[in-house]
């Protein structure tokens, strides 16, 4: 069964917390990964591969640069989950 956007957000927040130590509640839809959450490109790659494993989606490297905000990632995962 497909996950809701809220469930994806919560799962993503756990991954971000694991990688950066940011509190999960700080990971909100309108936050920018780089500007607001201070996530660098190396951490972003780890978050992407962990999200792939967790949600069973493939996020191509070309797509990663479009995922500037948390909402972008959640939307991408929601519409591509298997």
């Amino acid at each position, binding site marked *: 069964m497909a996950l809701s956007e809220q469930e994806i957000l919560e799962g993503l927040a756990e991954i971000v917390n*694991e*990688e*950066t*130590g940011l509190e999960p509640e700080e990971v909100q839809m309108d936050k920018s990964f780089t500007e607001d959450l201070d996530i660098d490109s*190396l*951490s972003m*790659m*780890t978050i992407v*591969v962990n999200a792939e494993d967790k949600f069973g989606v493939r996020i191509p490297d070309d797509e990663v640069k479009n995922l500037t905000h948390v909402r972008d990632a959640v939307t991408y995962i929601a519409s591509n989950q298997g």
Partner: protein
Amino acid sequence: MSTSPSSSQPARRVVITGVGATTPVGGTAPQTWEAILAGRSGVRPLTQDWVSEHELPVTFAGQIHTPPSEVLTKVEVRRNDPAGQYALIAAREAWADAGSPEVEKERLGVAVGSGIGGVWTLLDQWEVLRTRGPRRVFPLTVPMLMPNGPAAAVSLDLGARAGAHCPVSACASGAEGMGLALQMIRTGRADVMVAGGTEAAIHPLPIAAFAAMTALSSRNDDPERASRPYDVGRDGFVIAEGAGVFVLEAEEHALARGATIYAELAGVGMSSDAYHITAGEPEGAGAARAMEEAVADAGLAVSDILHINAHATSTPVGDLAETKAIHRAFGSHTANLAVTATKSMTGHLLGAAGALEAVLTALTLRDRRVPPTINLDDPDPQIDLDVVTGAPRALPEGDVAAVNNSFGFGGVNVALTLRTYR
């Protein structure tokens, strides 16, 4: 090495104002020191699955007493190899112990050596590559496996900008870190240095490799008694892990801020055997030269030295060669040296060993108590040294100096001279 002042300007004196350690016998320097004075071993059986999985011939080690996950954040653990984690823990302890000195960041440097570097990261990520492919390889793999990763982590943590160095000289790395820091302060390139060594190589590959060269004790049925320097029954060293760190400071800098001073780091001597890639030169000529230089570099005579914290790893050949080296350097004064081998309790921390033992030597001088060597049940008659056993031995009042030896594969010899600070 010609470090003696050539001009009329006297060299700056360098003092120890902070100590930190995470070791098989304690999670901090004071906890480690208490265990060492009490003669407690930190060597235990290894209980990990990989020991039987790989049918390792050696099944014990001196593993860290306090897991880093109890001290560091989850993210710090994730982003640092265990070698970096241990260095961060010991450096933060030393820095806090020194009173977090106010110092211009451009005058604060780091010298944290490592013999092997991030072997866990290297081999874990190799496994990730083999089983899950290149995209799953952790992006921080290179900075975590590089030997200077721990020095860099400490530099980042403290904002140290006078340099972040990592001497790599096998089991002399930590001592070389201390020696480099001494030079940097003396020559005016820094006022404060965070210096030491770290190692985290209790991994099946290094264990198998050291065992393949028959360097390790195989006393699997009695781990706590396996590290027995100077004993006739010694059969190799016990692999161990951890870190030791000093905060070193130019004397005038320490005095100006009213710092508590443990001891003076007074001299360093370094030499290389050019004899064999792993075996020390059996007559101890190179090791003796390092000791003589360390004493002269401190402006002292060999007769001023009253204590030696020996390298003494518990190998049949190594302990004997060091004994010959001590006789060579100290001559008839050797009889007046209270010698101890703290690896009998901690095992051999490889690249962190010299740093930890420098920390222990500083505490020895502060408390004027030489810790005992344990497991010396049947002294080797060829080892004619006055080894402290049973209980700590008091050092006299007044100005006392000590030498700490560290030798490494590659024929590297490093000796440090420490001196009580009046």
